[in-house]
């Protein structure tokens, strides 16, 4: 569950990234957060992961209030989230299995649980047969699937995918989106930050469009094309 209530963010250099943003994402939703560069998408993502705090307003993510969250509580907030990045952020010297297992170890999961859970996740993303390979031996789409497995392995209630298809060709991008849709159908809330309008319009999902730090549209279905055409 995500709540942003009248959120403002002004960076130290004076840039006003968010200007009174109000957004609610309920459990089990699939939401596209779209908008051009500088619209405030990254600021929202960073706020949800508690990398930054709002200047004004209130941000609540999975029952943690980001405004006044203690440093010691941040890891526990992040355990309720799974983050997928455009550049995958896999560790090259670790195998696919180790990359996923590493995320479980980092939260103190016991070895016997890791041994059961990691193959299950790799199977879910269709990469169990490549568990012993290193990330640089995989294609871009496969690397992103490993990153998704890693994001999911600690059973988060919200997946934040920040431009997950930015480095992929259209066919692989579609595969990744379908995988995220499948994950959502299993009950995980999914927030996809993107500016790939064609991809957004292929899925009939809720689309929140940002521009200039404000929400300019929040509708069900592929509205992104219409909104950008209008601007």
């Amino acid at each position, binding site marked *: 569950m995500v709540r942003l209530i009248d959120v403002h963010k002004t960076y130290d250099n004076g840039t006003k990234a968010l200007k009174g943003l109000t957004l609610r994402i309920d459990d089990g939703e699939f939401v596209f957060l779209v908008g051009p560069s500088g619209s405030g998408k990254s600021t929202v993502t960073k706020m949800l992961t508690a990398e930054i705090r709002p200047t004004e307003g209130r941000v609540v993510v999975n029952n943690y209030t980001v405004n006044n969250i203690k*440093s010691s509580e941040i890891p526990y907030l992040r*355990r309720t989230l799974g983050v997928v990045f455009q550049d995958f952020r896999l560790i090259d010297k670790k195998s696919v299995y180790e990359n996923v297992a590493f995320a479980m*170890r980092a939260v103190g999961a016991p070895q016997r649980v890791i041994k059961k859970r990691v193959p299950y996740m790799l199977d879910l993303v269709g990469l169990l047969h490549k568990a012993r390979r290193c990330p640089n031996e995989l294609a871009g789409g496969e690397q992103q699937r490993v990153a998704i497995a890693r994001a999911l392995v600690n059973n988060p209630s919200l997946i934040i995918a920040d431009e997950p298809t930015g480095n992929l060709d259209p066919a692989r991008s579609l595969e990744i989106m379908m995988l995220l849709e499948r994950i959502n159908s299993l009950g995980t809330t999914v927030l996809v930050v993107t500016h790939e309008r064609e991809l957004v319009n292929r899925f009939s999902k809720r689309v929140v469009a940002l521009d200039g730090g404000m929400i300019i549209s929040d509708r069900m279905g592929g509205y992104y094309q219409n909104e950008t055409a209008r601007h």
Partner: protein
Amino acid sequence: MKRLDISYFLRQGVGSIFSHGFMSFAAVTVMMACLIITGSFSLVAFNIDHMIAKVESQSEITVYIDEALPTGDAQALKDTIASAANVSKAVFVSKEQALSEFRKELGEDSSLVDGLQDDNPLRNSYRIFIKDVKFYGETVEALKKIPQVASVVSRKDITDRLIKVRSVVNAVSFVLIVMLGTVSLFIISNTVKLATFTRREEIAIMKMVGATNNFIRAPFVVEGFLLGLTSSVTAFFAQWGIYYYLGKTISAGFGLFALVPFSGVSQTAFLFFLASGTFVGTAGSLLAIRKFLNV
């Protein structure tokens, strides 16, 4: 952290030491050198303390007679000296006897005093034994007042000199401990910083998936601790070897200044090395990791 995976931290810490082996080797060597230097100064101070205690426990005073006085006249002073307050016994040592004792002390190098029989530079003296150590100072003063007495060498002079040397050694030791401790801290911190730098992406991912700061810190603390531990143990054995060799050399040369056997200080020395090494190692790694945790 639900439970501590010690074997994971150990694997990561040891792996990190070997992944930048040269830097780890340099850190251990520098730290070892620092520990040996500070250890050596502490051992010197300890030996001086021991020597002071030994000298203080001996109440003997040496009275040198004016060299202008012939040996016979010097010998005749025995009653005057023995009658001084608090003197229990006065033993006359002629300059010939003193030369022969000196020749014995020199052992293999006794040829150095060959030819001095005719022009003996030593003086006639008395060894004074006192009744009560409490009046040591007063006895020395009374002996000094005898006109034919050229000088009185009491153990108090030696202890005073040793105390001065000890304070210098202590001051130097303190400065060295602070200076070399800082150097070791800097070296360890940089070694661990290198490890954190090579693993910065890993750290960022760990933060993102919800690892606590303690979990991220642990492998680096293990690394610093192990580097400190290795330095301490190797420095201890090196110090043992150096001390043993020096002890042999010194006791062969100057019987009076025999060092305290290493077995007498080994436990304290080991604890000192272990505590300083592991403290500096752990503190250095904590300093290094600090800024990488602000993700």
